[in-house]
């Protein structure tokens, strides 16, 4: 579904991605784990089109995506819940969700919103409040459901567990796992390697802008190098 070949990107003169190869197949949950500064967020920013690509290619469902502007990508089925949530703080929860479906004006919008409220009932309770007043966990829930409102076939999630209490993290990972039932393919970028690998089918390990390991999630969890470097076991 999503193919990345030899992807390079730089901030000014400093290259941060030195040729990434990565593939996500339809129906999979794939995770990219790695330490701070490994280039995980930059990779997702390239995929959603808000970061210039300086080499390599991105193909999504058979179409070259490398030069498609960011605002067109969600219409092709690639939606992102960005790092740091990036919700519209001065709009209400409901308005945030409605804007997630900015490209659509049919009956499914209301249906999808009810699905979102069923996923995270707290959002329904706070639907008429300014999103800027939500707690961190609630903002993360809003960011994920807003991305889902865009009807993605592939959902990019950037650090959904960042800075959240363990109980909230568990709730969010549970929802990510449920994407299989919604036929949404997931690319999950996480520092919380153990949590991410536990719900993923396959994983990639990113280190200073290169993929250093890849394999099934079970293999990676069992690998002694991973256990030492990322799982703290």
């Amino acid at each position, binding site marked *: 579904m999503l193919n990345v070949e030899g992807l390079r990107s730089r901030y000014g003169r400093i290259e941060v991605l030195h040729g990434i190869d990565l593939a996500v197949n339809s129906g999979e949950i794939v995770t990219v784990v790695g330490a701070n500064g490994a280039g995980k967020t930059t990779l997702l920013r390239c995929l959603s089109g808000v970061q210039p690509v300086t080499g390599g290619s991105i193909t999504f469902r058979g179409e070259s995506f490398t030069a498609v502007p960011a605002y*067109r990508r*969600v219409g092709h089925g690639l939606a992102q819940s960005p790092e740091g949530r990036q919700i519209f*703080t*001065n709009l209400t929860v409901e*308005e945030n969700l409605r*804007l997630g479906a*900015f490209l659509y004006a049919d009956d499914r919008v209301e249906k999808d919103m009810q699905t979102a409220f069923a996923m995270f009932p707290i959002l329904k309770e706070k639907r008429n409040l300014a999103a800027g*007043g939500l707690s961190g966990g609630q*903002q993360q829930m809003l960011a994920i459901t807003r991305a889902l409102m865009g009807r993605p076939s592939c959902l990019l999630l950037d650090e959904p567990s960042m800075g959240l209490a363990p109980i909230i993290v568990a709730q969010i990972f549970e929802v990510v796992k449920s994407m299989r039932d919604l036929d949404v393919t997931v690319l999950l970028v996480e520092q919380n390697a153990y949590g991410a690998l536990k719900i993923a089918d396959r994983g990639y390990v990113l280190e200073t802008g290169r993929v250093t390991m890849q394999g099934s999630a079970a293999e990676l969890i069992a690998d002694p190098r991973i256990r030492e470097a990322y799982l703290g076991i």
Partner: protein
Amino acid sequence: MAELMQFVLSGLTVGAVYALVALGFTIIYNASDVVNFAQGEFVMLGGMITVFANMAGLPIPLAALTAIVVTAVAGVALNKLAIEPARGAPVVSLIIITIGASIFMRGLAQVVFDKQLHRFPAFTGDTPIMIMGATILPQALWVLFGALVVFAGLWAFFTRTLTGKAVLATSNNRLAAQLVGINTNWVMTMSFALSAGIGALAGVLVTPITNTSYDVGIALALKGFAAAMLGGMGNPIGALVGGLLLGLIEALTAGYISSVYKDAAAFVVILLVLFFMPRGIFGKSSTDRV
């Protein structure tokens, strides 16, 4: 009683002018947090182009329409040529760019048009209407009516339409706006076109009362800006109420104290309001958690 009524009517007349100018600031501010100091020049262009198109033989309605369209195009040009190339610059730099643009447009108007004072006839005559012993010009009612229509349109746009929400989303978080599929460049272009069009409409409506020349933009923009700040920048209700309030304060001060103090009184009130309500009367306080 008749005296007070007269001051109120004069205040409403001037206030409607301020309100109409203030409403023009709303859209660009909501899309980008930029206070567009070239807004007064849009008002000037609206009046001046109508005058010159009329002199060239177009009837007033057609001349006014031409003025609004040409000014909207000027707004788009301002965005494409000056604002968009500076993408990523801090808001303050963008505001300074709009000040530069206003000086440029004033200079250009001086060359393309002339330095004379112009006016065209009021839409429905100059015979004053009597209300409770006081008089008001029919054109003032046109200005009031125009301000109300623009206000209602903007209010509906920002609270009832998805495009309006997209404008708000673009200023709040441009990255996220792109991620949900909003073409933020298009939002900016449309905002400048609409703001410029509203400014030109204001120019068309007020010219029979205030007259126009190449340099009326500065004073109008300043008063309109003050009105918008008083009411709460970005909020259409704030622009309307702020404009009318400013006009009333000026007229009552001029009537009961002295016209020498009318500007001073207006600015003292603005300072007091902003001191206690820094975001203006209708400004929303922001509650961001990080």
